[in-house]
């Protein structure tokens, strides 16, 4: 099978993901979300490609090394970010629902840093335990 890295991905049929449901991050949900009802993967992007490319190439590491990205790479990040965001929203809602609230406020997003930076996650938990305390960052 040849792969054209320059062509835009078109709609493709995929099989339902049959992996187990035991993980909280729910692989089948992610697959369903990307795939949609007809079993066809959508090739539309939810974020502007130019903005995503700018974020990729203007990061600290990117600026230093002058790194560039293929169009396919920007597309992959775009899709991955959409899935990540979807998951975040659902997890935030779960926490809000636990406290019988319909609104996801900031305090329900405290888990958010855990996936990204362990140090920040610890800071988040500490700052939430001290009400109204401000944290300064260097």
């Amino acid at each position, binding site marked *: *099978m040849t*792969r054209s890295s320059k062509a835009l*991905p078109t709609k*493709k049929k995929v099989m339902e*993901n049959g*992996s187990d449901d035991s993980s909280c991050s*729910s*692989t089948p949900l*992610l*697959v369903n*979300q*990307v795939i949609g009802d007809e079993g066809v*993967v959508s*090739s539309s992007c*939810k*974020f*502007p490609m130019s903005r*995503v490319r700018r*974020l*990729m190439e203007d*990061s*600290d590491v*990117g600026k230093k*090394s002058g*790194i560039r*990205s293929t169009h*396919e*790479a920007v597309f*992959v990040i775009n*899709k*991955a*970010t*959409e*899935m*990540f965001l*979807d998951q*975040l*929203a*659902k997890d935030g*809602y779960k926490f809000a629902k636990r406290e019988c609230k*319909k*609104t*996801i*406020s*900031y305090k*329900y*997003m*405290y888990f*958010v*840093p855990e*996936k*990204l*930076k362990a140090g*920040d996650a610890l800071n*988040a938990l500490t*700052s939430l335990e001290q009400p109204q305390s*401000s*944290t*300064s*960052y260097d």
Partner: protein
Amino acid sequence: MGLATNNPMVGSSSNSNSKRDAASNDQFLPIANVSRIMKRALPVNAKISKEAKETIQECVSEFVSFITGEASEKCHSEKRKTINGDDLLWSMNRLDFDPYTIPLKVYLV
């Protein structure tokens, strides 16, 4: 550095969430897109506070940098100047985002 509100996502910014200006918003993905995707993921009666939207906006922008940074280092060590889709999938695997690679592989077939 100025005081930040208890926002764990803000590493180096000295602005509090409620005082965002247009310039700082340019370094993030558009909040309208973020908001739309969140609303789509939630039940109709769910509401999202402005603060939560802004936190998520920073978070997803950080996600882009995070994954890209790892892929960028890989390319650098292999003396390549351009990141491709496979580099990003490798990066996601390495950073514990493996579930995301499964649907994404469809695009690289």
